[in-house]
């Protein structure tokens, strides 16, 4: 499972820092596109955020953006 660590205005994934840019796009109840300075990243609820798991992508995105 991929874990994301939140930072100010972004997150760290696989030891790479991403900064939020633009709007998120929800694809379905478990998947979304997140716009960053490194491109648009596909995320889903198989990922955890700061060790926490989610079932709904809306809750996932709220937690991701802090």
């Amino acid at each position: 499972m991929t874990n994301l660590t939140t930072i100010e205005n972004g997150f760290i994934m696989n030891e790479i820092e991403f900064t939020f840019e633009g709007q998120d796009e929800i694809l379905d109840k478990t998947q979304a596109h997140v716009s960053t300075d490194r491109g648009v990243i596909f995320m889903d609820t198989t990922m955890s955020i700061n060790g926490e798991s989610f079932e709904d992508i809306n809750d996932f995105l709220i937690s991701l953006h802090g």
Partner: protein
Amino acid sequence: MQEKKKISQLTPKERALDSTDLLMISEVAPDGYATKSITGAEIITSAQEGRQATLISGTNIKTINSTSLLGSGNITIQTNPITLASGTGLNLTGTTNQISASVLIPAGTLTANKSIWVRNILTKSAGSTTSTGRIYINTTNSLTGATLLASSQSMNGSSYFQRFERNFLFDGTNLICISVVNGFATDLTASTISNVAFNNLVDNYLIFAVQNSTTTPDNLGHKKYIVQIYD
């Protein structure tokens, strides 16, 4: 008593050894003579052990595009573009974004100022709601954490066919391409530019994904994809 003769005194055969030839020698033994023999076939087999068989094109050495590799000279092989992969993806039903096909770009394959050309044919055979094809890049063969490279034009109603094509220029840091979020069939148009971070020193996967807006019967797939790298 048989005549004794040194081997060096034997009369030369003066023709090629036959498999049916028989070489016999006798040596003195306490009770008379002991005879030992070896056939021509055994000598030939022993001499051929470990030797490369005569090369016969198409039999024990392959050909390249039906051209024999035997003989001297050079065979020029086209290196620009290099076809990295071609194949046929799966048509998939379901409302989640799923992998239809993927292609490995081995580490070091793409170097600065080269470009990738990707073309495939998006097809559906059923349904009338919206389906979308996308292309991603990731260091594992998984959508999770993948970076979006392209979005197709939405396919709804009776739109069952779309040529989906993109060019990506690698500048050493980013893949540069037409807007990744705007839905286009091809990049034979002008739009905003996207810069997608790309690490060419590790393995990367091009991932062809599909998503339908209803569970069934819509069934989008990336058919006949081809990926080429240009100098």
